[in-house]
């Protein structure tokens, strides 16, 4: 079977999947979580964020959970997203692919140390 367009996983999609590894999050929380996990290097704008979310929804890697408001807030109800089993597997595969790249980089002495 030919590979699809999420293989390998694009960087933004990978970051979004990782941000959802622990919790269901809405768009802004995903953006913040991605910013944290990349030490502030990546802030995903609304266009990239929601187009990535749409592709991940289409691929079945994430799913939309019921709309809800934030506790103690008067905000409008928001769409929350949840990582699916397929999404978790895709993120793991991508992490392993990156780990392989790191192994090669270390072997080639481009990168030093056991862990990065």
């Amino acid at each position: 079977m030919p590979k699809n367009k999420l293989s390998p996983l694009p960087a933004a999609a990978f970051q979004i999947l990782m941000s959802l590894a622990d919790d269901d999050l809405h768009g802004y929380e995903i953006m913040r979580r991605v910013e944290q996990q990349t030490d502030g290097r990546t802030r995903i704008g609304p266009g990239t964020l929601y187009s990535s979310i749409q592709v991940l929804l289409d691929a079945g890697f994430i799913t939309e959970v019921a709309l809800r408001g934030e506790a103690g807030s008067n905000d409008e109800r928001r769409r929350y997203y949840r990582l699916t089993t397929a999404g978790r597997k895709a993120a793991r595969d991508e992490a392993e692919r990156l780990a392989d790249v790191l192994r090669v980089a270390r072997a080639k002495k481009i990168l030093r140390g056991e862990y990065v």
Partner: protein
Amino acid sequence: MFERFCALLLRLYPAEFRRTYGREAVQLMRDRARDERGVFLRARLLMDLATDLFATSLRGWQAARPSLVRIDGAPRFDIIEVHGLRPEALAAGILTSILLFASFTLLFQATEPTKTPAQLSEGPGSEVPSGDADEFDPRAVVTDPEARHKLIAAIALNLRQLYFDRALGQQLADAVLVQEKKGEYESLDTGADLAARINRDIQAASRALGIAGGVFVADVVHSERALPTGPPPPMTDEMRERSRAVLLLQNCLFETVETLPHNIGYMKLNGFADATVCRQTTGRAMASLNKTDALIVDLRDNGGGMGDTALQIAGYLFDRPTYMYDPRPDSPVPARTASPIPGNTLVDKPVYVLTSSRTQSAAEYFVYNVKMLKRATIVGETTAGHQHSGAFHRINDHFGMGIQQVAPPESPYLVKGWEVIGVEPDVEVSSTDALAAARKLAEHRPVPK
């Protein structure tokens, strides 16, 4: 004031994006504006927005949410409207980005431009003609070379940009364009002929590219009646209640459920009705045949419907949860039957399924699986060969095409699906003779030792 300015900028995003995620995008910018105060942070926010707007405008926004529609009462396709990139939005995006970049570069010399994350969405169809009726008069497709070329170019573009494997999509598109160049589409008389011929060429190219027979790739559709331009309005409670009442009145599409001589169970089912309405009726029908010695399932006039009901019936044929292959990438139907079903005694009884060339879609899903699992003898004609597993894209009022836009699950069987090829019977007879043939087989079945 600042939030209003952000909201104004968001208006420059492509219309499809605003329709689908506009409210969330505004909320996201409002959240950032609430948390990021001060000149530097506000400037950074604007810079992020400008960068994102620029990137989004360049790649367009084509990932509209698929929505289900019915076409002429046929089984469902997903309809995804193709929207072109609005030139004014692109121009406005570029201009705004340049102005903002220039301003903030001057104001914040030390500020590094934000890196744009990798782009996911290569929007399909930006060059697809708009589907304007004048441009795509179906008669003109036959008579006017330019109109025909535009239609074929739109089909090729869809293949290139929407088929889930871009490299194969490119080759499929090239194959269609080569046929056009050779003049193969010039002598056809009708839109239906043209669609059929292009489909044959797509099929031939698919085989040449190593895509297995039976796997859905793409299907050009011609309709005399105007294709719908969008999804139907959501069902109201009243509509839902009426639909439920009609289904129950029609006995959930069970035309006949009876026991024939020699204790042979017979059910004729002319469609798989909504399981949320008909689960109990289906259960009662199967229970009424529970004590029979053989079962004939007549799907000769079954045009498909809901896979859940097909799965429910299949559940009575197995003694353990059994995998039923569904070619749809995001199928809502569970992958396995709910077997064993308490009190059911049909699991070891011979089953005969009657088919015709009208048997299609969800009915073929049932036939294909019970055949592959060697759980039934198929008696009758080769089925229609319509998986309906792709997303449908309207090209104009009379032409559209289904495309496998997401990689389908792979069938575990040697025959990989039933698109175009249909499901072949084990005992080939005309559909009118199928019942008599199946009854004879059931009456003379080997007696278990």
